[in-house]
């Protein structure tokens, strides 16, 4: 039960996947890197959902704004007017570097989460679930229709593909370290106390609204950062890629691993994205290990079934919601 282990094991797992990605073929490398970005997203969600016990369907909104902020600001200047003609002049005439774009993504995600969280963090239970879902819908709608801030309903192309093995590994490590630091901090402990017993926590003077808002903002910033990693991994992105399916997938990862622990979030992300990669390869008819050619839809059917099964058999996740 020594504390450093709880940081070192998830970190080691991430590093192992990062190193592993340099040994496989180019076509498989994308799956390894994708799983690292998934770790970043799921750990970001864990920071809020895991610590507060409040369900949020809205964290992918912050991934989306982070991805589009980082993406739009790194499209090379010479092609920007061509692919994004309607952009606000200030966005159109400037381009920033890779690291700066990731920081921008975190800032935008955190700022949006703070603004949204200010009223929303008063809600719990179902009302919170529906309200955060509404946030996802609004974000998706605005990003899809407002061509002054992004590509609208079309694909955002020509984003530099800078998320390689090194950046993906470091990015995931940064998010894990931030989540660990938060968990060990006083605000992190206070928020977990409100999760276990809201009335008792309030009784000893914990301000639930403030603690939740703080976690929601941090989670938003980390999710935005992860969105930056995602867009630099893919090189192009549409609003549909950061919407319902990603929400489902990342929630599945968190739930399968165990909602209340950092190690569960990391493990769940790696296991489910590994399975997801295997199934999508198989759907395309490429022989992975066995020769498999599964029809479309198998992937989501499997993931849905596994997620439901884990929840029914072990509602607190495969490692039971405990740390190492």
């Amino acid at each position, binding site marked *: 039960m020594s504390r450093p282990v709880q940081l070192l094991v998830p970190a080691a797992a991430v590093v192992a996947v990062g190193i592993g990605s340099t040994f496989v073929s180019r076509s498989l490398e994308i799956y390894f890197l994708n799983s690292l970005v998934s770790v970043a997203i799921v750990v970001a969600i864990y920071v809020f959902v895991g610590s507060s016990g409040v369900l949020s369907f809205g964290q992918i909104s912050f991934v989306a704004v982070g991805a589009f902020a980082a993406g739009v600001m790194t499209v090379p200047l010479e092609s920007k007017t061509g692919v994004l003609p309607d952009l606000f002049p200030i966005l159109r005439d400037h381009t920033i570097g890779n690291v700066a774009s990731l920081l921008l993504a975190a800032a935008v995600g955190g700022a949006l989460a703070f603004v949204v969280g200010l009223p929303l963090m008063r809600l719990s239970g179902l009302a919170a679930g*529906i309200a955060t879902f509404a946030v996802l819908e609004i974000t998706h*709608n605005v990003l899809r229709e407002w061509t002054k801030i992004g590509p609208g309903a079309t694909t955002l192309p020509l984003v530099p593909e800078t998320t390689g093995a090194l950046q993906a590994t470091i990015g995931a490590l940064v998010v894990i370290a931030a989540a660990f630091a938060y968990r060990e901090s006083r605000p992190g402990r206070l928020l977990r106390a409100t999760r276990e017993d809201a009335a008792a926590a309030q009784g000893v003077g914990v301000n639930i609204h403030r603690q939740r808002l703080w976690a929601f903002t941090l989670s938003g910033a980390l999710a935005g950062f992860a969105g930056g990693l995602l867009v630099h991994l893919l090189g192009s992105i549409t609003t549909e890629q950061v919407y319902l399916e990603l929400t489902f997938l990342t929630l599945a990862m968190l739930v399968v691993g165990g909602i209340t622990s950092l190690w569960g979030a990391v493990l769940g992300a790696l296991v489910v994205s590994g399975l997801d990669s295997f199934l999508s390869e198989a759907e395309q008819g490429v022989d992975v290990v066995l020769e498999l050619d599964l029809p479309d839809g198998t992937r989501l059917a499997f993931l849905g079934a596994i997620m439901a099964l884990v929840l029914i058999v072990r509602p607190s996740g495969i490692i039971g919601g405990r740390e190492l």
Partner: protein
Amino acid sequence: MILAALDAQTLVDAVGLGAVYALMAVGIGLVFGVLRLVNFAYGQLVMAGAYTLAFTAERPVAVSVAACFLVVVALSLAMERAVFRPLRGHSPAVMLVTTFAIAFMLQALALLVDIRDGTIGEPATSVAPLNRAVTVAGVDVRKVTIVAVVVAVVALALLALLLVRTTIGLHMRAAAADFRTARLLGVRANRVIGSAVLLSGLLAATVAVILTVQFPLVTPDFALRDTIVVLVGVVVGGIDRLWTATLGGFTIGFAAGVINGALPTDQTVFLPSAVFALVILVLILRPAGLFAGSRAAGIERV
């Protein structure tokens, strides 16, 4: 501008949509009442019914509709046995996420079945004649709109009678008020939950028939969007009581119908944002629901 475009035609269609959404809201609200479980997979029951109608399109309409009811009710009961029962007593969040997973799984399974002929989407033609319009006082009323409204009114009336006049209805209301006390007083949990799930399945099958008449091309995401909208309506209306949930469902369906009919499409691009912003506002001001009494307000607010 909006009011000017509000003609009788739009209102009739909006009432029809409201009626369908009200039926779905009752189906979701009934199960929530006894299980405290929000069934996100409710739309997939409707989708399964729609596929049944599509695959039995060559048979006589009566056979097709009967098959639809059979499949949906069976699936509904199976869902209760395999998923809801093991989850009883868990937190609402776990139950919601589980039904979320079931919804995705059923949708993916439907895609697997649908894609076998190489195309996505199956036409359900046998029930389409109901979609023809009759003209009443200059307004085209599609027959299915009349059917939807009549069925909704009759179904709700029957349900109200069942809940108020029968023993099982009394048990269901008791279970919804306080399940533990109801069980202590001799209410059989499995029978009450079974009846609620059965009724909710019957409603889903009814909705499947009505929706398939209006939208005969059945796809794996059939009724998904509708379910999301109805869920929002139910929570905004007040999920704790059946009538506030139903009213919430009707209101959101009616509002969606009016807005879609009244505004030209180029002005509605940001409409979802406006609607969902309104939803957030209502939830913050009245977390227990728009139509819930003031006593209930503040329960889910910190």
